């Protein structure tokens, strides 16, 4: 079971969904805070969902206030970075770049991609955490091989 968990985690890293920062978070986990990473991830997804919907609304309005979009995305990028959501972060960067040059269509496209990555990551992490919990705390603290 634990091996399974480890494998899943490893694949997440290998596929670029997660990066080194995630490891940092795991290292913060200990006996006193056994579910720290999961808590953070939960918080992240909750908060980012809010951001995504804000951005969505802004985009739907069609007015394309790049400044404001950029602001939203800056926040989004910040939290994604903090949790180690690598692919999501990449999409954020691209989105901001499109904002910078005022490319509305690029923004829309990237945003779609971003949402996709975000949803994928969420699913995978949920899966991972579930397994990890079943497997026992030991697993989560280990670094991916």
């Amino acid at each position, binding site marked *: 079971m634990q091996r399974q968990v480890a494998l899943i985690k490893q694949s997440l890293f290998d596929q670029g969904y997660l990066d080194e920062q995630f490891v940092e978070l795991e290292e913060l986990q200990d006996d006193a805070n056994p579910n720290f990473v999961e808590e953070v991830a939960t918080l992240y997804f909750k*908060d*980012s969902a809010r951001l995504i919907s804000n951005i969505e609304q802004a985009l739907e309005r069609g007015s394309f206030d790049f400044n404001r979009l950029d*602001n939203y995305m*800056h*926040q989004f990028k*910040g*939290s994604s*970075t*903090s949790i*180690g959501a690598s692919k999501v972060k990449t999409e954020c960067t691209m989105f901001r770049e499109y904002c910078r040059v005022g490319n509305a269509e690029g923004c829309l496209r990237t945003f779609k991609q971003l949402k996709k990555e975000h949803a994928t990551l969420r699913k995978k992490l949920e899966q991972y955490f579930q397994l990890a919990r079943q497997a026992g705390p030991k697993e989560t603290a280990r670094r991916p091989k």
Partner: protein
Amino acid sequence: MLNPGQGRGPDSGVAGGSNSDPFPAGLRVLVVDDDPTCLMILERMLRTCLYRVTKCNRAEIALSLLRKNKNGFDIVISDVHMPDMDGFKLLEHVGLEMDLPVIMMSADDSKAVVLKGVTHGAVDYLIKPVRIEALKNIWQHVVRKKRNEWNVSEHSGSVEENTGGGERQQQQRDDADNNSSSANNEGSWRSSRKRKEGEVDEQGDDKEDTSSLKKPRVVWSVELHQQFVAAVNQLGVDKAVPKKILEMMNVPGLTRENVASHLQKYRIYLRRLGGVSQHQGNMNHSFMTGPDPSFGPLSSLNGFDLQALAAAGQLPAQSLAQLQAAGLGRPSSLNKPGMSVDQRSIFSFENPKLRNGQMMMNSSGGNKQVNLLHGVPMGMEPRQFAGGGHMRVQQQQICGGGRVTGQNVQSSGMMMPVGGGTSVLPSLGQQQQQMMLSSSVPRRSDLTDTSSNRVLPAATHSVVFNNFNSELPRNSFPLASAPGISVSYQEEVNSSDAKGGAVITTAGFDNPSYDIFNDYPQHNNNNDWDLQNIGMVFNSHQDTTTAASAAFSSSSSTQRKRQEVVAEQVQNHHQQLPSQSLNHMNGSGSVRVKSERVAETVTCPPATTLFQEQYNQEDLMSALLKQEGLPLVDNEFDFDGYSIDNIPV
């Protein structure tokens, strides 16, 4: 805070590694970030470092937390991009009010932003994602700061003792530099320092005070700061030396070092005010940015601030005069013929504005608050200005603007420095303050006789006041209130339109620079005001330093009539002022003077000229005095910048 008990003196902390040494464990960190994910992660990391963490997702909350527990935190970590307040603003506030080291962080790693962090005084800048290794060493900033503080006071003391301030100048200057002070300030600072050189004398036994290696952190409460500002003003901003200030304050347990470092900050604040105010609109800003303590006294300064603002800002002499006039004239007899016409108009216009009850004058408590004159004795100042210098007028206006909390407003025209208003403000309560400001017209009349209301001044002041309004009682930042004030002030001014737009400058206050002030709603009334006033006063000086000086001399002579006593004082001040104002608008020195005293002696130095005119009105003076209850005769000001002696705080 760092506990000497832990065996950490300025050096000990550094010596031990973080592992073996109990410190930095227990370091009290306040982390501010609107992103909950980051906040959670940071908290966890900091806890892992064995720090005591308090997290906060809004800058406003963070500020209020800091204000409530002045000594409750050792270091602050803040995100740059936050919805409710810009991280840099928070940084400034914290630096001014609490003087804690602040670390900025952001996912943005562009050079421009990092540089901004540096110039705003951040001790470090972290790029997100933050790693725990980066957090492990943040304690170094706390230690470093304490060491610097200690060294500064040490230096100040010694300098005063020997070189008469020469060295101190450098030291202080250097320290000031660390605070990202503008270069020009430095210059003026230097020159102003030189002046003091001659004056600094006693400090003889300062040394003994500096015996303790580690000074316990002193919480500069509003009252304490007001006392400080009063003492400084009395001594003269330029001449104020820690030893004397300490003696005058007569606060048990306060060491010379405490005073010295506080003084340094105060001067920086004034400098900033002076530097900023040059843009008139900035006046308020300068006030605010000044060291936090300065804000406290604001209330008293209020009157002066206006003047300062006027002077500094760009309040045209006329507008200032007007403001003053308005201020003066309004209340009751303010409109003395003596006052320059425009001045008068200004004030008169202001006066009505003053809402009697509210503003400042609330006299109930606030009368004295008149801080309006913050730096500029409201009544007094105008006098001086009236004479000639534009500066003066400006200053005065400011003083007047200061809105005088009615009482202080030396009324004569003192435009109650907006900044100064702070002191007044507190008493008045926020609304009042605003009123005061807006009314620019010295509401004083309500209180005493209107003369003080001048508030006009320089919109800048109003800004200052605004801040106060909100919170005055808090020391948080005098400036903060100012913004509010200025706004209101402006309106007033505009309406009166006497000012040629000078007043309107208050609108200028709304300048972004003032934003800072706004943030600080709390402005320590006492402290801040002083600064504000001073700043205001100074500003005017700066601009017109030459003019002022000239004006002063001439005006003073003419204006004197008001009151012999006052006149004398004013004279003293004038003379001093010109030099002072010339030197530094920073306001650190001169400004201070003004703000403090404003109360009655009104010798608002820079503004004095203005005041003088306004002051011509005897009744103003007397009214003021009565309100203030301050004896007119206070020549001791030596009028560094302000003749304000009795700033009622």
